[in-house]
C-alpha cells in the first residue's frame, strides 16, 4: 500500500492578512526610513532624487538632540529600575501572600488604566505644580512610573503564580532557606516573563509622551517629545524622520532580546495564555 501526503494548500486567508499587515505596518516605516536617508525628495517623484546623510549630520549636530537622547535613556532606565524595585516585591506579595484588601488593591492597578488617561496626568500636574516638580527630571520619573505599574505588577504576578509550589517545597525539603528558594527556584522560573515585563516597561517609558510633555516640558525634553516638536514646529520634515529612525533602535533591541522570551512561551504565560 502506498500513501502520499497531500501537498499543503495555500492558506489564502493567511496571505491576505500578511499582505494587509505588511502594507499597514511596514509601508509607512519604509517611507519614513527612506525619507531619513534622502537629501532631496520632491513631489511627485516616487523615488527620492538624491540619497544621502545630509539630515543625519544636521540632526546629530544639534545639542538638543544629544541631550534628549541622554535624557530619554536615563529616564527610561531610572523609571524601569524604580518600577522593578517597587513592583516586583509587590507582585510576589500579590501572588503568594494573603493579606486583607489584596484583590481590591490588585484591581486598583487596572483602574488607573480604565479611565481616560489624559485626565490623570492633568490632575497630577496640578499637585506637582504645588510641589515644584513641574519641569524636573524626578517629576517626569514619577508620572511615568504610574504608567509602568500595570505591566510591572500584573505580568510578574502571573509569572510568580505560574511557579509550581511543589517545586518550591521540594527545594525547602532538600535544605534551602526561603530566600534561597526564591533565588534559585522561583526567580529563574519566573525570570523570562519578568524580563519581558521589564522590557515592556523600558520601551513603554522610552516612547511615553503625554506625561513627559505635560510635566517635563520645556526643561526636560525626551527624544519623542523633541521629535513631536520638530514635526510640529520645524519646516524641515527630515529632522523628524531621522529622529523617528533613531527611535526604532530601542524597539529593535527590545524585540531581539524578547524573541527568546516570546518563543519560549513564557511571555504568553505572563498574560495568562
Amino acid at each position, binding site marked *: 500500500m502506498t500513501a502520499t501526503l497531500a501537498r499543503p494548500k495555500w492558506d489564502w486567508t493567511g496571505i491576505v492578512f500578511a499582505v494587509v499587515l505588511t502594507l499597514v505596518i511596514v509601508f509607512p516605516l519604509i517611507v519614513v526610513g527612506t525619507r531619513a536617508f534622502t537629501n532631496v525628495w520632491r513631489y511627485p517623484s516616487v523615488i527620492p532624487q538624491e540619497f544621502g546623510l545630509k539630515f543625519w549630520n544636521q540632526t546629530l549636530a544639534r545639542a538638543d538632540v544629544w541631550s534628549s537622547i541622554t535624557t530619554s535613556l536615563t529616564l527610561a532606565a531610572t523609571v524601569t529600575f524604580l518600577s522593578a524595585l517597587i513592583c516586583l516585591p509587590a507582585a510576589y506579595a500579590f501572588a503568594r501572600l494573603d493579606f486583607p484588601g489584596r484583590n481590591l488593591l490588585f484591581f486598583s492597578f487596572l483602574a488607573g488604566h480604565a479611565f481616560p488617561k489624559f485626565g490623570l496626568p492633568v490632575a497630577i500636574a496640578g499637585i506637582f505644580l504645588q510641589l515644584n516638580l513641574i519641569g524636573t527630571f524626578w517629576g517626569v520619573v514619577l508620572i511615568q512610573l504610574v504608567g509602568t505599574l500595570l505591566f510591572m505588577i500584573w505580568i510578574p504576578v502571573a509569572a510568580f503564580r505560574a511557579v509550581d509550589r*511543589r517545586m518550591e*517545597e*521540594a527545594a*525547602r525539603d*532538600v*535544605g534551602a532557606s526561603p530566600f534561597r528558594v526564591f533565588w*534559585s527556584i522561583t526567580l529563574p522560573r519566573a525570570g523570562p516573563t519578568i524580563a519581558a515585563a521589564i522590557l515592556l516597561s523600558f520601551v513603554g517609558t522610552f516612547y511615553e509622551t503625554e506625561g513627559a510633555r505635560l510635566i517635563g516640558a520645556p526643561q526636560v525634553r525626551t527624544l519623542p517629545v523633541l521629535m513631536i516638536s520638530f514635526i510640529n514646529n520645524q519646516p524641515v520634515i527630515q529632522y523628524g524622520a531621522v529622529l523617528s529612525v533613531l527611535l526604532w533602535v530601542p524597539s529593535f533591541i527590545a524585540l531581539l532580546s524578547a524573541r527568546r522570551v516570546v518563543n519560549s512561551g513564557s511571555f504568553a504565560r505572563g498574560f495568562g495564555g
Partner: protein
Amino acid sequence: MSPRCSARRAPWISFSLDVADGELVCLLGPSGSGKSTLLRMVGGFEQPSSGLITIDGQEITHLLPEKRPTGMVFQSHALWTHMNVFKNLAFGLKLRRLPADEIKRRVEGVLELVGLGGYGTRSVTQLSGGQQQRVALARSLVLEPKILLLDEPFASLDQHLRERLREEVRDIQQRLKITTLFVTHGQDEALSMADRVVVMRDGKIEQADRPDVVYREPRTPFVAGFIGTMNLLEGSVSNGVFNRAGFSFPLPVADGPAILAIRPEALDLTAVTENGRAKVHRVTDYGTHGLVDLELPDATRLKASVAHPDLFTTGQSVALTPRAVAAYRDHALIHRS
C-alpha cells in the same frame, strides 16, 4: 535508630503512630482522609496544632522543612525543570557545602541506584514520566534522609509503569533499609509494598497492621469495605441468627443490629431450581475465575467469586453458603468465623 512520629491536629486529625527503623509504612485512605496532610506535617509543610513529631528521639515538631532529616517525593515529581538531572540532585548537596568531587560521586551513585546511570546531563523535561519520578526519588535519596516521605508518587503514571516502579522502590528501600512513609489511595500499592498498612478515615487510624492481616482480619466495617472487594450486609441479629431480606446466617452474638462482611471468594453458591434466596444478576468470566453478581429479594447486591462461571446463568436462583464471615456492630468487630 528508632524514629518515632506522632502528630495530633485538632479538630479532625488525631493520630499516633510509631514507625520502626527501616520499616515501610503505607498510609492508605480515601481522598480527604488526612493522609497527605499527615505526611506534610512530618515533612514540615503543615503544622500540627498540638502533639509531637519525633525522629530518633529528637523532636522536630516545630522545625522548618529545610532543617528536618526528611526527604519528600511529590506526586507531581516537582523537579526543577530549569536545571538538568545532575543539578537537581546536586542542589541539596551544594547547600550542605560538600566538595565538588564528593557531590559528583554521590549523585552518580544514586543515579546508578535508580537505574539512570549516565543521565546526569539530560534535561528533566526530556525524560519520561517514570524516569522523572525516579529522578525525584534520587533527589531525596542522595541526601540520605532518616525518613523518606512518598506522597502518591506513582499516581500520575500508567498502570504498567506503576507496578514496575512499585517493585523498584520497594527493592531500593529494602536495600538501603530506609524508613519510609508512603501515602497512597491505591490498595494494591499498599498491600504489595508495605510492611505495615495504616488505613485512615477522617484523620483517624482505622487499623494499622501487616497487609495480610488488614485484608484477612479487618477490624472495622470501613476497613472491610475499603480493602479488596467485600460484601457488606446490614441486618439484625435475633436469637443467634443474622437476618437480611430472607438471607439468614447463624451468628452467635447478642441481639441487635449488625453488619455482616463476606469476601466474594468466601461465598459459595449452589444452583437450586426454586426457593433460592438470591438470583443471579450477571456473570463475568475473567478466565482464571468468574464473578457472579447476585441480587437479594430487596435488591441488595452481592458478589461471589466462582471457579466455574459457566455453571451459572442470569436469572437463575442460587442458595448462598458463606464459608467465613466477620460481623461488626458500632464500628467494631464482634464476631469472626
